[in-house]
């Protein structure tokens, strides 16, 4: 029996190596089937519950608009520009950190950044900007310029036991190569900035972009950078900027 398995394995290995691209990649038809599932995204329920949480803890869309000092009419376009440098914070922040501050202001104990309820609320808040083009401005001020530079550095720096960087799998020269049946995505063209938070099918849960970065780091054996840290927010700035101009569509649906 043992040899049988060994032979089967080596043949499979041989064929996967020589035809790796064709044999283990999904077809466009398969991909279309998964895309259709967006119609009934389980995360729709989480977005709805995020809307209730925002109402309860932050005074809903109106409360958020007031806190951000914009009109409710301008709120979608304003949200489409996150992460942003905000004077009150004296730093570049993501939507989640804004929500924490607003919860605190309203005398509620803020949800942790990694809390599922926070993910739900972030997803709803970003969905306010659905169909609006991402308008992050990395040249808006020196803080955004610095965040962009730090984000690029974080993206490009090789770390961990395998010496991998985000760039190792997401540089233009490897995009499209098939790794474990999946083509390595072009984060910009595939609108990473506009389609997270998303439902992760393999995790059966809603995840944010920063949380996805953590999953990537963990799998690549890199020390995981904390959510909301300057490096993590900077990474979100850098990756979101790659999708600038593309329409926000929350919740996304990912493998």
């Amino acid at each position: 029996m043992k040899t049988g398995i060994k032979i089967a394995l080596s043949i499979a290995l041989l064929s996967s190596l020589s035809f790796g691209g064709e044999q283990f990649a999904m077809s466009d038809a398969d991909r279309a089937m998964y895309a259709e599932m967006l119609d009934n995204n389980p995360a729709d329920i989480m977005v709805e519950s995020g809307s209730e949480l925002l109402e309860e803890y932050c005074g809903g869309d109106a409360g958020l608009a007031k806190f951000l000092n914009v009109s409710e009419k301008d709120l979608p376009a304003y949200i489409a520009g996150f992460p942003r440098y905000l004077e009150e914070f004296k730093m570049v922040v993501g939507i989640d950190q804004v929500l924490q501050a607003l919860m605190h202001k309203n005398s509620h104990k803020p949800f942790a950044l990694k809390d599922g309820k926070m993910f739900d609320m972030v997803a709803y808040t970003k969905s306010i900007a659905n169909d609006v083009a991402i308008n992050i401005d990395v040249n808006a001020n020196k803080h955004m310029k610095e965040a962009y530079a730090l984000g690029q550095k974080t993206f490009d720096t090789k770390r961990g036991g395998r010496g991998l960087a985000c760039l190792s799998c997401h540089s233009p020269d490897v995009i499209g190569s098939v790794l474990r049946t999946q083509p390595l995505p072009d984060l910009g063209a595939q609108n990473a900035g506009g389609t997270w938070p998303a439902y992760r099918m393999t995790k059966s849960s809603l995840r944010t972009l920063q949380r996805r970065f953590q999953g990537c780091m963990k799998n690549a054996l890199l020390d995981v950078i904390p959510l909301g840290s300057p490096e993590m927010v900077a990474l979100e700035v850098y990756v979101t900027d790659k999708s600038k101009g593309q329409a926000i569509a929350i919740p996304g649906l990912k493998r």
Partner: protein
Amino acid sequence: MQRREFFKKLGAVAAVTAVMPSMSFAEEAKPKGPNEFSYQKALDVITGGKPAKTSSKVQLKVPEIAENGAVVPVTVEVDSPMTESDYVKTIHIFATKNSNSRCVSVHLTPANGKAMFATRIKLGGTQDVATIVEMSDGTFLTAAQSVKVTIGGCG
């Protein structure tokens, strides 16, 4: 190490891990689920031994390669007028090699207007997904398609 060389190696490792899972499945002793129901047994119970014909009227849509075994989209569409005298009574969906092959049985009525059912199923490994469709005249139609389950992607 050159990056290109590194990637070749990375690719080779990835290919092995992509092949391995389907083999280790068989070797592990599986815990028992709440309902053990083989595909053959389910077929006998549902059709009562009547033949189930493969028909072009039944469209079973599943991916050839599933991105992961936890969420596999399945759609069954049946060409039927859905009138009182001629409609699809039940659409059964099976994961033929799961220890409980039965996934869902959907009992439709003419009020559905169109005979279609879509859901997502879990597959324990590469196998056929099958559907048996029971028509209002008591006949059975069937369709099946193989789905390759890989553990793909990163993270």
